[in-house]
């Protein structure tokens, strides 16, 4: 493989507006229930009574905008019984519509929830890194939609050189599972994977 494209996400400036998610949905004509990019709200904490007032205790919250991470060790690819999933020369993980039988094995094994079933077409779908836009020299839709410029993309080694190599932030899984092509600038209240005191705050169907 010559190249491995990846995403960089700056959680410290994300405001959770979901413009990336909506731009992705719009550009890729995704039906309801299918989100190739999802903005996850993670938080926790409690309140204690002190006299007449309630005082927050370790209350925190932050957002992560997550799509397919085009993992170097992609379990979706390894577990696809029909060989419909492959990596292209840019390291982009792609699903071949003509080969996919919609068995959903890939969605079961992906710890990021990236592959999603399109009921209309009966096939699995996922982020294709807007390779069509990239071929025209344009940015992926999510990158351009972010009003905070919190999402970047590029050669993953260059992103790591520029932004560090953090990827294990709650509620994301351990790196070793898939080796994701993702770099995160953690939110100032971020909690490390496995050491989180909070939980995902989103509702069913929201992510």
């Amino acid at each position, binding site marked *: 493989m010559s190249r491995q494209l990846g995403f960089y996400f700056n959680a410290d400036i994300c405001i959770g*507006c*979901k413009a990336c*998610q*909506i731009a992705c*949905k*719009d550009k890729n004509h995704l039906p*309801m*229930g299918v*989100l190739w990019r999802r*903005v996850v709200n993670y*938080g*926790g*904490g*409690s*309140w204690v009574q002190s006299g007449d*007032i*309630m*005082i*927050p205790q370790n*209350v*925190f*919250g932050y957002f992560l905008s997550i799509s397919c991470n085009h993992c170097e060790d992609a379990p979706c690819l390894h577990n696809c019984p029909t060989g419909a999933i492959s990596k292209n020369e840019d390291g982009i993980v792609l699903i071949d519509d003509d080969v996919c039988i919609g068995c959903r094995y890939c969605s079961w094994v992906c710890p990021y929830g990236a592959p999603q079933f399109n009921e209309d077409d009966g096939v699995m779908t996922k982020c294709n890194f807007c390779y069509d836009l990239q071929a025209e020299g344009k940015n992926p839709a999510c990158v351009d939609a972010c009003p905070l410029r919190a999402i970047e993309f590029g050669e993953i080694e260059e992103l790591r050189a520029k932004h560090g190599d953090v990827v294990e932030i709650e509620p994301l899984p351990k790196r070793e599972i898939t080796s994701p092509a993702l770099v995160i600038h953690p939110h100032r209240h971020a909690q490390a994977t496995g050491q989180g005191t*909070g939980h995902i*705050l989103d*509702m*069913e*169907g*929201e992510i």
Partner: protein
Amino acid sequence: MHPDVIRNFANQLASIKPTSIYAGQSTTKFPAGEQFAQVFFTVGWMTGNVGKPGANVSWIGPEPNFTAPLVTAGKYGDTVPVNPVYPDMIVFCADINTQRDWDCLEYSEAWQSIVDGEYGRDVWPGGKRPIDIRMIYHGHGHFLNSMPNAKAGIEAHRKVDFVMASCLNYNTNAHYADLVFPISTLWERHGQVFTDNREHVLWWQQVMEPLFESRADIDVAYGLAERLGLDPDEIYGNSWEQKAYNTLAGTQVIKRDGSGYEPLVTITAQDIKDMGVEGEPQKGRITIEEFREKGIYKVPREADDALMHIAHAAFIADPEANPVATSTGKFEIYCPTLAAMVNQYGFSTIYPIGKYQEAEPDQGYHARTEEYPLILFTPHSLRRAHTNLDNVPALREAFPQECFMSVVDAEARGLKTDDVVLMSSPHGKVIRRVKVLPGMVPGAVALEDGAWIDIDNETGIDRSGNPNILQAPRASGQGVQCWTGTLLQVEKYDGDLVADYKRPAREIRFAKDSD
């Protein structure tokens, strides 16, 4: 609020000069909210943050936004007819000595007033006034969805003889109207120049023909005038081309020295001929081609240019020579004129000096009861702009219009995220799914404004989660709308609620689209 937060704010305000202090309008949208504005200004004045570069105290926004614009679009040039009943526009509470002022219907209580057939207060000259409204014409906006006590609003719509609504889409106004006029969007109309804010003007262009039978508002009014036996050409005689030209030719930009205005656009005799309109050539700063291409003109600014505006600078520099418009000529921390003006309306009573005040017996922290122990506040939703775009399924999926509740209040009620809850106030009920947020202050519940009302006619419960179903018809002070402070209860609801995005969008479906 924790005392340390207040101390920290006080320390910052005392030590950082100059400071600009902004609050946002919602800080005053509760009973006797004028008191907050008065306190806010007092703190700003006492800390010297007024009349100097970098200093500003405003609860509503940057002071320069309320000064003269730097550029404005021209008008259509149509004849604006004089209202035979009210020759001048009237503004509620504009002039306390004018009898006419009392003719205004107060916004928060309007629906209830129409239902009751009377409005006002006993203390008004002549007491409460009878009112007999027979027709509601929604010319624009989304008032039935956007005003408090919406259940009374629906009742008012059913009470009157006739309701018509001009709408871009099938919104709540349309749903309760007898007659709906589908209105075209700006993308479907002849382009024109318009004022966006005080520093720039935009020139939009038509990109598509109107969908189906929709028309521009003015074209609807034109057709109505014809059918009512009026001569629409007396008012709307200009063609769309001429209207658009007038907005262009009439666009004025401030001179660089700030001494007055001059035309923005250079227009030649050939331009006028090409556009097929009547007009005179004029000299301006930019050509028609440049403006059309860019679609925007923004007044160039430089540091220390002549267009800088510092509010109250003259008064601060020389208070004797430049008094402000109060009885003493000074900023009045203690202002009996203000209190008298507000109190005469009989909605509530405020002190002449800003202080914390429990204004209403049925609203706010101190009015909580066992039946209604929680306080409602209504932030804006990222799903929509006020009520616009609430009909877009992808946005409905992203932002579920949830009932935001604190961890403490949810635990006390045995609620967890995704549970269906009934939210009740003395004025109405809505059902939603609850989202438990650690960041929510215990005792407060948030429901975002603008969801399109969807009443279940069997139960009378609103399924959309529109907070105006819960809001009190509560006029306060000078006509403040008390959006914050309505009391409510939230409890588990024994019933299902299909997610908004899984329900059909409320839109007109034509036969040819139904395949």
